[in-house]
């Protein structure tokens, strides 16, 4: 399979100097790619640019061989789902949050389908994070972007989410996961991209 994403010479300006500079990388379509690096190195920024929550100040990003800016942005985001560090629940039940197909999607993220009628606010953080994954999967994406998906979780639910992420990659989704834990990256990822702080020698 070819590259899902290709980043060429990316530059992102922050308030106090560059966050990313001259950054290039390829993300293959298959498997799980981990993005690691010290905090403040621009991992989160990098992930946000892949579904155009943000745009780089220089360089270009290709998705399936075409500049991300050439896609309709809403269609791009449907295909490239982003799930944040802290689960965001919307008002209403779990079924309202996930939308059509929740009966099949909840078991897929290892949640009991009986949770469908529960108010999303009442879920534990681990359950809420898995519900967010189900909500993203409901859009039928080709790719999942996960920003430290386990950082807000306790050890038990962390292992659960790690296994889940791994199984989604095995099912053929492109998964890009930002993590600050080298252990997590080496244990579950197929490959690792390291982001060095801008200014450091590559």
């Amino acid at each position: 399979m070819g590259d899902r994403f290709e980043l060429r010479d990316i530059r992102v300006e922050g308030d106090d100097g560059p966050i990313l500079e001259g950054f290039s990388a390829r993300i293959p379509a298959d498997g799980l790619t981990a993005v690691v690096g010290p905090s403040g190195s621009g991992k989160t920024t990098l992930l946000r640019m892949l579904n155009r929550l943000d745009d780089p100040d220089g360089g270009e990003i290709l998705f399936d061989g075409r500049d991300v800016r050439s896609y309709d942005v809403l269609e791009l985001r449907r295909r490239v789902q982003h799930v944040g560090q802290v689960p965001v629940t919307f008002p209403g039940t779990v079924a309202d949050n996930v939308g059509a197909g929740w009966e099949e999607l909840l078991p897929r993220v290892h949640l009991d389908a009986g949770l469908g009628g529960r108010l999303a606010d009442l879920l534990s953080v681990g359950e809420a994070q898995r519900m967010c994954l189900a909500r993203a999967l409901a859009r039928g994406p080709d790719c999942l972007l996960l920003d430290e998906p386990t950082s807000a979780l306790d050890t038990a639910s962390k292992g659960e989410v790690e296994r889940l992420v791994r199984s989604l990659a095995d099912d053929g989704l492109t998964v890009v996961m930002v993590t600050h834990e080298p252990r997590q990256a080496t244990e579950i990822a197929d490959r690792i991209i390291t982001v060095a702080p801008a200014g450091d020698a590559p």
Partner: protein
Amino acid sequence: MNDLAGGISFADVALSLCLVAVAVVISRVQHADLETDIVVATVRSFTQLLAVGLVLDYVFASHGGLTPVIIAVMIVTATLTSGSRARRVPGARWIAAASLTVASAGTIGLLLVLRIIPAVPRAVIPLGSMIISNAMNTTSLVMTRLRDDLAAHRREVEARLSLGQTSAEAAGPWHRSALRTGMLPVIDNTKVVGLVALPGAMTGMLLAGASPSAAIRLQLVVMYMLLAGNAFAALVAGKLTVGRFFTADHQLIRSLRRMPS
């Protein structure tokens, strides 16, 4: 003195300064430390109103053609006030200018077209000033509320964007609550009018010697006018403010994302 209209001389105004003295004494005795503010407020109110009185005398007497200029000056002043209140809202002044212009032109225009009020300075200027000052508060409220809410809920807004919502959809819940915040005070005032306080226009007419039934008819028109003016202002300010906080590609602008919440 039975007729208050035209019955108050500058000597009477000078005598009423004893009321200011009461406030100064209370502030001094209670160590509220407001004496300077009270004096400044007294001097400012005197000079500002004296100037406005002279201008209005001039316009009412024979220069009705200046009415649009007077209204424009009010809109510009209100725009600058509202624009500086809404710090860190990009283009706040333009938003305020648009919202105040639509609110005053829409409301006064409707009153004139329906021939509810005559096209004379004596009607247009005071009613315009009421609309503009109310719409100014609404505009500031809507802009600052949206700014604070979108900054505080940026995670949720971006989660909605990530799921494929447009910026209008993603901002929807906070857009609605900002509209409510902007419009509710006037609606509440309209509900309790006459029960809690006799409103300004009615009070003015009563003091000027009009019959209470004539005074309430004017007051009703004023209240309905303020409802419409505020709705216009909230609508325009809300739409334009949401527009400025997102790019054409449905991204939250960077300055809002980096705002302390």
